[in-house]
């Protein structure tokens, strides 16, 4: 299945994983599930952040996330991957990204999940603009992985 999804509104990552696992219907095959959730904080680079807007490159975003999943499946023996990424107006504590990987054994799940997040952070065409008391600012670079 390897779904990727760009979401315009808030989502609960744990409900999404639970639901996707039910749909996947591969019980007894996966022994390992590694997930990462990135969530909006109220603080970044010395400033309180009030809200955020996530811009993206429509068309390329989907294409790039699909590429990440395909590369992970080529590099490791995986059963399934799931990526969900928010766009638009983000509120404090909103989940921004979910990456989840199912595999038979744990090394593959851990390695693939981290690879996918690092690749997404460095190359997937999304941009954050934060609103602070001092005005709006574009986030210039991601935190190191």
């Amino acid at each position, binding site marked *: 299945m390897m779904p990727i999804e760009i979401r315009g509104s808030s989502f609960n990552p744990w409900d999404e994983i639970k639901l996707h696992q039910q749909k996947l219907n591969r019980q007894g095959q996966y022994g390992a599930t590694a997930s990462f959730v*990135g969530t909006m904080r109220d603080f970044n680079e010395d400033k309180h952040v009030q809200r955020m807007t996530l811009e993206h490159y429509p068309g390329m975003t989907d294409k790039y996330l699909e590429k990440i999943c395909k590369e992970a499946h080529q590099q490791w023996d995986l059963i399934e991957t799931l990526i969900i990424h928010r766009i638009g107006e983000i509120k404090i504590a909103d989940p921004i990204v979910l990456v989840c990987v199912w595999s038979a054994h744990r090394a593959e799940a851990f390695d693939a999940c981290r690879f996918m997040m690092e690749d997404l952070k460095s190359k*997937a065409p999304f*941009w954050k603009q934060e609103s602070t008391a001092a005005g709006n600012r574009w986030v210039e670079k991601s935190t190191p992985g």
Partner: protein
Amino acid sequence: MNITVKYFASLREQLGKSEEILTLSDEISIAEVWQNVSASISENIESENILMTINMEYVKSDALVKTGDEVAFFPPVTGG
């Protein structure tokens, strides 16, 4: 030959546009397209700090642009 050029995030704001159609007389590199379109920005942006794509695939600055291509320029990405 015509190409579509897209700009995102801070670069879109600096240039004051998100998209334009350029008419080129010759096949040129994407670096030359960047020199062209970035000439109007007062603060000089080094092309090393700009990501470049042709038809939604990352390319190096010496990649050639063909007619009908969708070219995009944008600052480092900050998703996730």
